């Protein structure tokens, strides 16, 4: 795994964390507009960053959420627990 891939994974991790935190907050505060705007903005940024990542490094998700060239790239390592950088 090269440093560019690592940096992209870190950027995705950061945005996903924002999305997780806002999801839980919105579950108990569903009527608040400001966190909802933040959530929607985060989702949009996350979408485009993941698309960019997957183009070079292969799918982050299977089950039809990302497409793959041949051979099937989903099973390429390293898996999350094997990343050493």
């Amino acid at each position, binding site marked *: 795994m090269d440093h560019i891939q690592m940096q992209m*994974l*870190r950027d*995705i*991790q950061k945005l*996903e*964390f924002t999305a*997780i*935190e806002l*999801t*839980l*907050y919105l*579950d*108990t*505060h*569903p009527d608040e507009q400001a966190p909802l705007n933040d959530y929607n903005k985060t989702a949009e940024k996350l979408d485009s960053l993941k698309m960019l990542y997957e183009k070079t490094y292969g*799918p*982050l*998700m*299977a*089950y039809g*959420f990302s497409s793959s060239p041949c051979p099937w790239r*989903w099973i390429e390592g390293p*898996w*999350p*627990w094997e*990343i*050493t950088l």
Partner: protein
Amino acid sequence: MWLYEKILEYPVRVYKTDLRMAKYLMAQYGGPDSELSAGVRYLTQRYSMPTNRAKGLLTDIGTEELAHWEIIGTMIYKLIKDATPEQLRQEDLGGYFTEHGQAIYPADASGIPWTAAYIQATGDPVTDLHEDMAAEQKARTTYEHLIRLTDDPGIKDALRFLREREVVHFQRFGEELNRVQEELIANKVF
């Protein structure tokens, strides 16, 4: 349906073998107050929750717990993967190695296998949400003990992240418990 994403929720920067710490971390992998208990507890309790907020919250926190279970599994995997059977024996992990080799098996720090007896689902949302809040506090305490047992900055960093998540989950469960109690009183359903 659940979807797996090929990324950890938080990076695990562990580079050395440390069998003693791996053993202690098993508490959060397969112990009573482990991430596994948390995930199974919330994903089980959600079916009998009375409000859509509570169903959503238990689904989402339960799902996040599985991501935390993966973080702990990753830490243990990295801490033991290069160990020899002799090193495992010296750290009193010979019994573990006999039964599980270098697999990451859900048992606690003393080797006791995970059991559903660690969790409860009573069908009473007030009772279940109280259990959930207590569970988050117990996990927070366990993380504080674990943080004091290591000097490794990578392990400490990941454990601090996980500890903070327990505090946030406790807060969200508390907010929902208040709402559920208000609604139950308003509807006079006991």
